């Protein structure tokens, strides 16, 4: 397959042009706009599928496409300073492209049903197109600078979509909160890019990898001080702050639960394919930097705290979307935890599997909300009979997220937990990480099935709502997208092999396609990136299959047979533990909400303080509003305002005005007396004087002229006398 600009760029450009066109026609031709948006994302899905299938055909770890063009050139003389943009596709990008376009397509299709009686039906699709194209642009980018551009574009789109129902006060506040909270991370991200640029001189992934492999960070000194590692830590931390903002990690997670104010399909897009995935994707891309900056322990702890903390908050939520929102934060915590413990492949796999089942869960929730016009789970119950297809989809997704074997969530999450366990057994400082991870898995299984049981099982608690719900029928844009997504919650798709070059292993092994193709850029494989080649954007593609030594990417590389065996055993133990934990969580939820053998209220009364803390979401919002904003930011703002008014305004601005007033008086005097009086009026006066003289001479009295003539002639003749 040939890779030119026109076989790659449409993936981004089609949704983007759909956005541009729809922005103009959406008011008059709403139906057309919806069709354009959905069609555009579907066609870009076909393009992504083409690339993905090519990568599956080649089936090589080092296969990549890297096309570069010069964006602008700031070179002066000897200093070459080129800002390049480019497209970089490797196995990871190909998988991401397929996931984003596929999930976005299904969400678009679902939205045509879910949003069709909304007053701003068309506008929703305008934003969705821009959102998807921004995410695809981010995935295709080859450098942090263009990543940042698309990153901010997504921030704007999430702002618009969360505040989509702007009549509600909460929606406006939520959109602002999302924008502001992620901005905190974005500022750090930009600082991180600059820090990297100061060392590497480029923001390109491959350049950064090569710089790290060449030890540029380690060997950096200022004078006699070695500043490389602190700088790498700083850069890694700043980049990771960007991830924390975008991927809703503690303590910047507060925006994500509020993001459910947006329409449900947009929540599906934010929580699955685009916004939050971008943060994890960035951290995965910058993994070598995280390692060089020795930040992985910090990352693992942030991920573990997020995974567990969000899961505990999800336990008592009654809003169906709130449960899903906190489960998203929790699952993102697992991905970040995976990055922290070096479980690169599994973390990325969890990103993909989570995107699929979380999109499905949100669309199912949307289907429920659309049919009963209510989001509160205590008012639901027994909807299994009314919404059988939605129930089926949601059941499969709950199995996946809870980590039931043979489902996708098990394959990915179990591997993360296994790696965390293996690391904890060698390095005691990771023990809390592993414990929080397993604890979170228990809670995940519990709260997901609590949601499922409260929604679909038992008797209808609110008969008015139940009786008004319509019986669900198969509809191509109402529940077919859910069912398609729910099929892909099967673990087979992620732990199997498409090409016969691996082996199908439902419990996950190092031979499955994910593990074979996605390679961790760590110390073993980093030197190989020096062989990666860049091409001009317009160049004709002459790529051949690039085979790199597989040993470089083998997870067990460098381990002795004994150690490898030990890791394998630990993974099996971890898998067993997480299966037991998942079933225990499901059993707990079953006994509480279906069989009612355990009374949940008793637990609530037994731990009142915990319940209050959970109800208040660990007081994060209060902390931010009351402490940081009221006590910190507002006094700080006031101090700045005082400085601005009292010092800057008074002395600099007003002082400058006073100086100017004096200068102006001098200038006015000069202008009045010298320029105006002497020069301008002086010219006039001299002309008038000449005028008086000449006017008297020009009398028209011919005899006078004659006399003058005679006198002049006579005096001339008089001079000739001699």
């Amino acid at each position, binding site marked *: 397959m040939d890779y030119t600009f026109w076989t790659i760029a449409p993936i981004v450009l089609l949704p983007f042009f759909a956005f541009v066109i729809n922005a103009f026609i959406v008011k008059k031709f709403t139906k057309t706009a919806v069709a354009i948006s959905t069609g555009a994302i579907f066609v870009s899905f076909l393009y992504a599928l083409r690339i993905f299938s090519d990568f599956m055909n080649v089936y090589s770890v080092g296969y990549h496409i890297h096309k570069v063009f010069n964006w602008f050139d700031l070179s002066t003389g000897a200093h070459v300073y080129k800002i390049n943009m480019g497209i970089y596709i490797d196995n990871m990008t190909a998988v991401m492209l397929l996931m984003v376009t596929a999930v976005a397509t299904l969400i678009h299709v679902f939205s045509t049903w879910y949003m069709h009686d909304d007053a701003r039906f068309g506008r929703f699709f305008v934003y969705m197109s821009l959102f998807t194209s921004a995410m695809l642009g981010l995935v295709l980018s080859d450098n942090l600078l263009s990543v940042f551009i698309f990153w901010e574009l997504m921030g704007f789109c999430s702002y618009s979509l969360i505040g989509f129902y702007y009549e509600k006060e909460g929606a406006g506040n939520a959109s602002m909160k999302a924008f502001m909270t992620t901005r905190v991370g974005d500022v750090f991200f930009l600082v991180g890019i600059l820090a990297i640029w100061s060392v590497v001189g480029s923001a390109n992934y491959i350049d950064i990898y090569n710089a790290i492999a060449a030890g540029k960070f380690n060997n950096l000194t200022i004078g006699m001080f070695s500043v490389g590692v602190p700088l790498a830590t700083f850069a890694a931390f700043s980049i990771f702050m960007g991830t924390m903002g975008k991927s809703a990690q503690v303590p910047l997670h507060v925006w994500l639960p509020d993001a459910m104010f947006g329409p449900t399909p947009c929540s599906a897009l934010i929580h699955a394919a685009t916004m939050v995935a971008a943060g994890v994707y960035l951290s995965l891309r910058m993994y070598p930097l995280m390692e060089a900056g020795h930040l992985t322990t910090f990352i693992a702890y942030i991920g573990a705290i997020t995974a567990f903390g969000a899961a505990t908050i999800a336990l008592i939520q009654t809003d169906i979307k709130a449960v899903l929102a906190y489960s998203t934060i929790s699952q993102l915590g697992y991905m970040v935890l995976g990055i922290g413990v070096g479980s690169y492949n599994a973390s990325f796999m969890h990103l993909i599997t989570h995107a699929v089942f979380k999109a499905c869960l949100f669309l199912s929730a949307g289907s429920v909300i659309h049919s009963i016009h209510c989001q509160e789970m205590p008012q639901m119950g027994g909807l299994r009979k009314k919404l059988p297809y939605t129930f089926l989809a949601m059941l499969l997704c709950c199995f996946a997220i809870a980590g039931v074997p043979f489902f996708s969530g098990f394959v990915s999450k179990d591997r993360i937990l296994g790696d965390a366990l293996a690391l904890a057994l060698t390095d005691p400082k990771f023990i809390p990480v592993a414990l929080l991870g397993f604890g979170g898995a228990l809670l995940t299984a519990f709260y997901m099935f609590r949601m499922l049981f409260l929604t679909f099982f038992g008797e209808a608690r609110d008969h008015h709502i139940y009786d008004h719900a319509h019986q669900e029928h198969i509809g191509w844009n109402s529940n077919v997208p859910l069912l398609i997504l729910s099929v892909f919650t099967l673990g087979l798709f992620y732990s199997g092999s498409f090409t016969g070059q691996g082996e199908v292993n439902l419990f996950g092994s190092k031979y499955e396609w994910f593990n074979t193709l996605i390679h961790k850029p760590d110390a073993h494989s980093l030197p190989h990136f020096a062989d990666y080649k860049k091409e001009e954007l317009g160049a004709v593609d002459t790529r051949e299959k690039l085979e790199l030594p597989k040993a470089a990417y083998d997870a067990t590389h460098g381990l002795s047979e004994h150690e490898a065996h030990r890791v394998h055993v630990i993974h099996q133990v971890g898998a067993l533990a997480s299966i037991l934990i998942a079933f225990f969580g499901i059993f707990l939820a079953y006994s509480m909400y279906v069989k009612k053998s355990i009374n949940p209220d008793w637990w609530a009364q037994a731990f009142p303080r915990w319940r209050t803390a959970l109800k208040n979401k660990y007081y994060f919002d209060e902390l931010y509003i009351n402490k940081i904003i009221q006590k910190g930011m507002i006094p700080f703002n006031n101090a700045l305002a005082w400085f601005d008014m009292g010092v800057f305004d008074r002395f600099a601005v007003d002082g400058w005005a006073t100086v100017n007033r004096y200068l102006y008086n001098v200038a006015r005097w000069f202008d009045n007396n010298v320029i105006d009086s002497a020069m301008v009026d002086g010219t006039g006066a001299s002309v008038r004087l000449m005028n008086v003289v000449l006017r008297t001479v020009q*009398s*028209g*009295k*011919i*005899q006078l002229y*004659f*006399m003058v003539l*005679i006198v002049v002639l006579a005096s001339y003749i008089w001079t000739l006398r001699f």
Partner: protein
Amino acid sequence: MINLGTYLGISFALFICGIFVMIARKNIIAILLGIELILNAAALNFAAYSKFVNGNLDGHIMSLFIIVIAAAEAAVGLGIVIRFFQLRESIHIDDAASLQN
């Protein structure tokens, strides 16, 4: 004894008279007469030089030309004066100070 100096003296007297008439008189016809006097002074000069210095008839011929031109000029001048009189009902020279009609 009549020599060149006598002629020149008469010629000079005529010339001065012409100048004086041109400057002092306000009547346009009188000024034209002054011009005639000046022309005649010039013609007399030509004739005198021709007789006493050159010895041929060149100066005489020039004098004849001057007389013809003087006649033509007087005709034109009087024409202008008549036209002017029709316009202003005056032949006072100071009425001709304006360039407007």
